C-alpha cells in the first residue's frame, strides 16, 4: 500500500508487516492557528516492534504520539487500532488498552508503588487477588523486589527506580500497545543506558507494539526496530530500519539530523561473523622454518606476517627484519598480537581494536582463541560500500515501483 500523501523519498519498509495502529491522514490544527501542528500524517505502526519517532524539537513528534491515544483530539483523519476505527470511540476506554509512559513519569505521590501499578487493573475491574499478583509480577519484571518496593511511596525512589515503576504501571493492564514519550530523557546517561538495555531485554519477551518518541538520534538507533524521522509538522522524511537510515539518508535534512559519524554508528549493526575475511595475509606456525617463512612472506604483498602457536592461537606479528634476525625465536620476535575479536563482535568494536593495535588489523578468534582469519581496513571499507549500495538499490527499486504504480493509476492505494 503506497500513499500519495507520503513524500516519494520518504520510503516505506519492504515486506510491510501487519499494522497494529494505522494513522490515516491524521492532522491536528489548533484553534486560532492556520498552520497545522501535525499535517496529514500516514503512519503504519507494525505489530510487536519498536517504532521510534525522532525529530528536532518542536517538530510535533510528541503531539503525534498523543494523537494516537487521543490525549490530543485529531482535527482530521482516522486512527485504526487493531483493525478497529477508534477515531470516535470513548477516549478513556481506548486509553485503558494503551500503556502510556511520559518523561516526567507522573507517579501518583499519594499512592504506594503497588497502588500506582494497580491503577489500570482497578479501572478494568480485576479482582483483588489478580491485581496483587499482577503488581508483584510487574515489579519483578522491571527489576524491583516486590517485598521491598510494594508499600513504598514514589518520593522514596531514585529517578531510575521511579521510571521502572512508570514502565511497570504502563504495563499494568497488559496492553498490546505502549506509547513512550521520551521515557528516559530526564535520567542520567549511565542509568539511562542501563534502563534502555533492560527495556530491550523486556521487549524481547513481551513483543509489545511500542511507539517511542525521542529527540536523541542515538537513542532512536539503539531502541528502534524502525525509525521515522520527522520534519516540521510531523512530515515523515524517512521511515526505515536504523541500518538503512544510517547507510543511506534520503536527503540533506535526514543526513544533517543523524549527523556526522553515521557511518561509524552503522558499523554497530554488522557483525564480524558475517564478513568475508581477508585471505591474502601470510600466516605461519611458530615451528615453521625461517626459509619457509621468508618464502611465504616474499610471496605476499602484506608487510606483516602472523605467527600462530601450536594450538592455532595468534601470538606475534613479524616482518622481514624479525625474520632476518635468527637470534630471536619466532614466538618472541616482532610485536605481540593484541587486537583480537570474536566472531559475534560488531564491526564497531572490531574497528576500535584495529585502531588500537600496532599492526593496523585485527585477528578474528573463536572461543578457544584459535585464529579464524584476519580483518583489515580494506574489508571494513568494502562492508561500508556494500551497505550503502544495498540501501541505495533498495530506494531506487522503491522509486521504480512507485513510478510504476503511478503509471498504472493505482498509486493512491485505494
Amino acid at each position, binding site marked *: 500500500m503506497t500513499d500519495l500523501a507520503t513524500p516519494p523519498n520518504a520510503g516505506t519498509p519492504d515486506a510491510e508487516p501487519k499494522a497494529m495502529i494505522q494513522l490515516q491522514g491524521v492532522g491536528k490544527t489548533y484553534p486560532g492557528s492556520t498552520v497545522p501542528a501535525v499535517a496529514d500524517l500516514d503512519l503504519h505502526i507494525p505489530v510487536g516492534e519498536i517504532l521510534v519517532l525522532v525529530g528536532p524539537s518542536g517538530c510535533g513528534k510528541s503531539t503525534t504520539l498523543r494523537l494516537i*491515544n487521543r*490525549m490530543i483530539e485529531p482535527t482530521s483523519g482516522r486512527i485504526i487500532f487493531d483493525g478497529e476505527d477508534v477515531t470516535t470511540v470513548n477516549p*478513556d*476506554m*481506548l*486509553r*485503558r488498552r494503551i*500503556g*502510556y509512559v*511520559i518523561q*516526567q*513519569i*507522573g*507517579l*501518583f*505521590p*499519594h*499512592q*504506594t508503588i503497588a497502588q500506582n501499578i494497580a*491503577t*489500570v487493573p482497578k*479501572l478494568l475491574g480485576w479482582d483483588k487477588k489478580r491485581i496483587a499478583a499482577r503488581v508483584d509480577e510487574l515489579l519483578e519484571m522491571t*527489576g*524491583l*523486589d516486590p517485598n*521491598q*518496593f510494594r508499600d513504598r*511511596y*514514589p*518520593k*522514596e*525512589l*531514585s*529517578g*531510575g*527506580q521511579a521510571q*521502572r515503576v*512508570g514502565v511497570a*504501571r*504502563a504495563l*499494568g493492564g497488559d496492553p498490546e500497545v505502549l*506509547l513512550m514519550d521520551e521515557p528516559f530523557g530526564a535520567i*542520567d546517561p*549511565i*542509568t539511562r*543506558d*542501563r534502563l534502555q*538495555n*533492560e527495556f*530491550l*531485554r523486556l521487549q524481547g519477551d513481551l513483543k509489545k507494539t511500542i511507539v517511542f518518541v525521542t529527540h536523541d538520534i542515538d537513542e532512536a538507533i*539503539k531502541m528502534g526496530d524502525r525509525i521515522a524521522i520527522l520534519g516540521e509538522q510531523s512530515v515523515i522524511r524517512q521511515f526505515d530500519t536504523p541500518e538503512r537510515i544510517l547507510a543511506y539518508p534520503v536527503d540533506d535534512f535526514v543526513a544533517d539530523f543523524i549527523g556526522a559519524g553515521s557511518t561509524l554508528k552503522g558499523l*554497530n549493526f554488522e557483525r564480524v561473523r558475517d564478513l568475508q575475511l581477508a585471505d591474502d595475509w601470510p600466516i605461519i606456525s611458530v615451528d615453521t622454518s625461517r626459509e619457509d617463512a621468508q618464502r611465504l612472506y616474499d610471496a605476499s604483498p602484506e608487510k606483516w606476517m602472523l605467527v600462530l602457536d601450536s594450538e592455532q592461537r595468534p601470538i606475534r606479528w613479524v616482518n622481514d627484519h624479525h625474520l632476518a634476525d635468527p637470534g630471536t625465536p619466532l614466538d618472541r620476535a616482532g610485536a605481540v598480537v593484541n587486537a583480537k575479536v570474536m566472531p*559475534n*563482535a*560488531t564491526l564497531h*568494536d572490531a574497528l576500535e581494536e584495529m585502531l588500537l593495535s600496532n599492526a593496523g588489523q585485527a585477528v578474528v578468534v573463536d572461543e578457544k582463541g584459535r585464529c579464524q582469519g584476519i580483518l583489515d581496513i580494506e574489508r571494513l571499507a568494502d562492508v561500508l560500500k556494500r551497505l550503502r549500495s544495498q540501501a541505495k538499490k533498495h530506494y531506487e527499486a522503491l522509486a521504480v515501483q512507485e513510478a510504476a504504480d503511478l503509471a498504472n493509476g493505482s498509486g493512491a492505494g485505494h
Partner: protein
Amino acid sequence: MSTPVQDTDALGSEAAMNLDDVRAVNDAYPDHELSDELSTYRLPPGFRLIKTNIGLFITPLIVLIGGAALYFYVQSADKIFQDERALDWNRNLKPQLEQHLSITMWATLFTIVMAVPLGVLLTRPRYKRAGAPILAVATSGQAIPAFGLLVLAFAWLGRGPWTTIWALSLFTLLPVLRNTMVGLEQVDRSVIEAGRGMGLTKRQALRHIELPLAVPVILAGVRTALVITVGMAALAFLIGGGGLGETISAGLKLSRDLVLITGAVMTALVALTVDWIAALIEKTLRPSGL
C-alpha cells in the same frame, strides 16, 4: 531498629550483564544508582509520632497552663456580686462557650460547603475564565471590616446567631476558596496527564488525584478560616449572637477587670484549642506519601 534501603539494582545490572548485547556499556558502574538513593530510616511508630509532631504538644500545654492560671486567679480574686453573676459557669460562661463553638463550627462548615465546590468548578477549563472576577469579589468581601459586615448582615437578616454564622461564613470564604483553587492548580500537571493517559475519566482524575493532592493546601485555608471565625465570633454579641463576647462586654460595661480578663483569656484559649484541633485534622487527613 532501622532498615536502610538496600541496593535494589543488583538484580537489574546482573540481567544487563547476561544480555548478549554488545551495545551494553554500563556494566562498569553497577552501583551507580546507590549514590542518589534516598536513605530512609524507619523509627518505631510511637517514637516517630512524638518526634515529628513535637509542635502539636506545645499548644495543649499552653492551653492547660493558661486555663489553670485563669482558674486560680478567678478563685483567689476578691469578687463583688456582679462578678459572681457574670462569671457563673452554668448561667453564663458555659452557654456562651457552647454558643461560641457552635457559631465557629457552623460558619466554617458553610464556608467549606460553599468554597470547595466553587473552587473546584473555577479550576475546570470550562469555568476558568470566571475564576479571576469571583476571586476579586471574594477579596473585596474580606476587605470590608468584619464589624461592618456583621452590621450589614444584621440590617438584612435581623438579630440572632444565624445572622452571625452567615456573615462569618461569607467573610471567611476567601481563604478557603483561594486555597482550594491554588491547591488544585499546584498539582503537578504530569501526574494528571499520566492518570488521564491511563484512562482515568475527568471525574476520576479529580477524585483520585487532584483533590487528594490538594488536601493539604485546602486544609490550610480551612484552618485560616477557623482561626478568623473563632476570633470574629467574639463580636457576635453585638447583634445578639451570644458567645464569649458577652462576658468581655459585661466586663467593659461594669469596669470589672476580673470579668474582662476572664472573657478575653477564655476567647484566646478557645482560639488556641480550635487551631490545635484543626492542626490535628490537617495532620490526619494529609495523604501519606507527600
